[in-house]
């Protein structure tokens, strides 16, 4: 892959769910464009101990985003200027049109986005939907392949085995550095992880998986439903 486009709503989505994959593509010399929907303005995590306020959080997260993207090797970030928790209330076709314009310019061979309805956070579902709608609006021979990132607990049961499994051992240090760059969001979690006294087995298992491999489902844009909800 020479040109990879990433469309996700929150600073840190690119790191937690697909940082290893992005780092791998970057290492192989790919051009990577990241359209980041919001600045995660409504986030609850503010560091541990907290160092941000509701009013400083967007600037804090914008800086963290830039640092993490530099670590991962993302060359171009486009902040879409949407607001956290509101993406699903915007006009999906308008959003898709903006994304499509960028696709026409950037000509990605691969799109990485959230799997609509499997994103857990409504912003994930809504921006994933808009990004795939943008692909659907392109002529078939200009469409990028779609790696859809699914998060819900039922994802394996309903979607089956992932189509793409990426082992990330060789770029783990890069992913961890990007996670640490998102300090306001990751500090509490990384403390918990490194202290090694975690009683919650399910949480530990999820963390171990996140540090081992990243998985995606291929999404056929023609199968996108008429509306999200």
């Amino acid at each position, binding site marked *: 892959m020479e040109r990879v486009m990433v469309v996700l709503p929150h600073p840190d989505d690119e790191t937690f769910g697909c940082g290893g994959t992005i780092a791998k593509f970057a290492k192989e010399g790919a051009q990577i464009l990241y359209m980041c929907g919001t600045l995660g303005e409504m986030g609850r995590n503010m560091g541990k101990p907290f160092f941000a306020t509701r009013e400083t959080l967007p600037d804090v997260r914008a800086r963290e985003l830039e640092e993490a993207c530099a670590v991962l090797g993302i060359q171009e970030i486009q902040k879409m200027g949407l607001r956290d928790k509101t993406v699903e*209330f915007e006009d999906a076709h308008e959003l898709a049109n903006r994304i499509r314009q960028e696709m026409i310019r950037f000509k990605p061979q691969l799109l990485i986005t959230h799997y609509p309805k499997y994103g857990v956070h409504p912003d994930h579902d809504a921006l994933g939907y808009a990004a795939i709608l943008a692909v659907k609006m392109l002529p078939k021979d200009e469409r990028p392949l779609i790696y859809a990132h699914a998060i819900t607990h039922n994802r394996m049961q309903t979607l089956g085995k992932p189509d793409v499994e990426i082992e990330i051992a060789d770029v783990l240090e890069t992913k961890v550095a990007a996670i640490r760059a998102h300090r306001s969001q990751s500090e509490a979690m990384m403390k918990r992880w490194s202290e090694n006294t975690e009683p919650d087995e399910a949480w530990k298992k999820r963390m171990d998986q996140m540090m081992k491999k990243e998985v995606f489902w291929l999404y056929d844009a023609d199968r996108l439903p008429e509306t999200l909800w």
Partner: protein
Amino acid sequence: MGPIQRVLADEKLQSFVGQEVYLHLETTNGAYAGNNPSGGMAVCAYIRNVKVKFSRASITGLGPYRAGMKMDGGWIYAEGLTDWEETPDGKLLFAGYDNEGRLAVSLEISKTPFRV
């Protein structure tokens, strides 16, 4: 109040778009939430009878539902809505009740002021 019928509720909501309306928005976990050994905090916020005007509005999700209204330079948002009612005087009431029947969130819109 009864379970939210999303499509119908979304339709009713549209009649409040584009004009000045009164809003009640509230979230609470109960005054006793702070009084438990696991160290919970009682948290509540509400705003009542504030005049707002929004240009887009929708009810989303698979239930519990969410509501979002886009204003000139701002947003109104509520999550966790389970039940709704249209009152005889035209107020649109949404609320989220937990398993014990306790109110956790409430979003209400009216063309006339709410009583205080």
